[in-house]
């Protein structure tokens, strides 16, 4: 279109007329703004040229607008959902490219701790029987079968405390004090499988571990999938205390995830099973259209 313009119209660049009286009060002249004027022509010809230009551009612009509008409107749901899901996956790859485990979420002072807020009880329909609870762990290095752990087994690992901000995907956030075991400490003790079967080195070569972790409640009513880098982040805990007290049932007793690396939907409560896996695990809310990665 530009070349066309040049043919139809001899553009001439004209400097501002500098009127001394207006000079200091005129933004256009201060910034040396220029006009692009065609040659003087009769009013009739000007109207005719304008009409020709208008018809062409309005037709083209209108066609582009209609194509955009109806293209989006009439796009089959499957195509659209596919496009949006793929965009989530693209965003995930971009996020992981920029991800650095050394970056930490801010920690807060005790005074900043929020009133506790209960949200999300899926997978916890039945009342918890603490005596009957145990944690099964699968996908371990050098083992085909699961192992079963008690809360005391978990508490025997190094204890970590943090006061971080929990962000709900709905848009609210609360500052919570957590105590528990770093997942990375847990994984260093109960070694995950590696991709090639070599001896795992969680601290130095996490990239050789199987890339995912699947976690679910004892009744499998709630289940989440995590990528290995996020779950090995130093601020991702298997938490058993909240705000200085043992976890309450509605907050996920006896053991839950706590982490500022992802939205609350990923911080599964009442964990019954952990599995290290090479396949991308199912995720409760991802199956309802939410971002599987949901990472910060």
């Amino acid at each position: 279109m530009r070349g066309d313009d040049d043919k139809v119209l001899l553009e001439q660049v004209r400097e501002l007329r500098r009127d001394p009286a207006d000079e200091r009060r005129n933004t256009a002249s201060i910034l040396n703004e220029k006009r692009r004027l065609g040659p003087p022509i009769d009013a009739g010809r000007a109207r005719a040229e304008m009409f020709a230009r208008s018809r062409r551009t309005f037709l083209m612009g209108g066609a582009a607008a209609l194509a955009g509008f109806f293209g989006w409107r009439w796009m089959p749901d499957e195509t659209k959902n596919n496009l949006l899901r793929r965009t989530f996956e693209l965003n995930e790859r971009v996020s992981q490219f920029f991800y650095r485990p050394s970056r930490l979420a801010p920690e807060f002072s005790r005074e900043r701790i929020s009133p506790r807020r209960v949200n999300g009880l899926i997978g916890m329909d039945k009342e918890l029987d603490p005596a009957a609870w145990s944690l099964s762990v699968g996908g371990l290095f050098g083992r085909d079968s699961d192992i079963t752990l008690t809360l005391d087994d978990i508490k025997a690992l190094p204890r970590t405390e943090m006061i971080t901000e929990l962000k709900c995907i709905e848009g609210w956030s609360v500052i919570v004090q957590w105590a528990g075991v770093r997942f990375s400490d847990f994984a260093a003790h109960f070694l995950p499988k590696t991709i090639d079967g070599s001896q795992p080195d969680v601290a130095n070569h996490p990239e050789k571990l199987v890339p995912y972790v699947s976690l679910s409640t004892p009744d499998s009513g709630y289940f989440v999938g995590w990528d290995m880098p996020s779950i090995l982040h130093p601020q991702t805990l298997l938490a058993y205390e909240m705000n200085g007290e043992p976890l309450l049932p509605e907050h996920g007793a006896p053991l839950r995830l706590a982490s500022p690396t992802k939205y609350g939907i990923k911080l599964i409560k009442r964990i019954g099973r952990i599995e290290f896996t090479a396949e991308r695990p199912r995720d409760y809310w991802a199956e309802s259209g939410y971002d599987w990665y949901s990472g910060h």
Partner: protein
Amino acid sequence: MKKQLEKKHPLAIRWLHWINFPLLTMMIWSGLLIYWANPVYGLWFFRWELFHFFPQGFYDVLGVPFRLAEGLQLHFFFMWLFAVNGLIYVIYLLVSGEWRAILPVPGSFGRALRVALHDVRMVKKLPPQGKYNDAQRIAYTLVILMGAGSVTTGLAIYKPLQLAWLTSLLGGYEWARWMHFWLTILFVLFFAVHVVQVAMAGWSNFRSMVTGYEIVDAAGEKATEISVAGEGAKA
């Protein structure tokens, strides 16, 4: 009387402007679907909430409730297009020299006030101007900054850990979300004023944003309208 065709808006500016319209619309719409899930903001006068964003009827009429997942999907798709389109626009302004038509300078605020008074029929004569008057310059520069602000605050709430320095700089996660919301309200207000002004400026002006051209009286025939600084150039 002789006429001239004046090239007012380059092709790139027109495309970028019109592409931005559906993109910003989708960002605001999907933002509303997301905001519904935690609609905590209001307009306060000391202890009185004058208006809460938003009344239930507003959500119901638009069909907003329970579409958070869809809102997030759309927001995190259109964000790319919105940000890239905006970035190209800013780069184009810089390299083409079009920034000269948009940037305010010291003294613009006084003239912008006169433009505003003119628009409410309290002052007869518009101050001298270029393609845009000084009120437009301020508005168009502000709206670019608002776009940059929306992207920045959006990033701060999208990646509050990996970009923790940015989130902290904005006063934390909650404040970043607050700013992100109010910038959107400002966009809506800008849009409302923009549409009214375009309607008042008339067809020839609107057409120039589509075709790029406007018919003007030939230079020399009316001395006051020769230069860019002449009075009465339109929105």
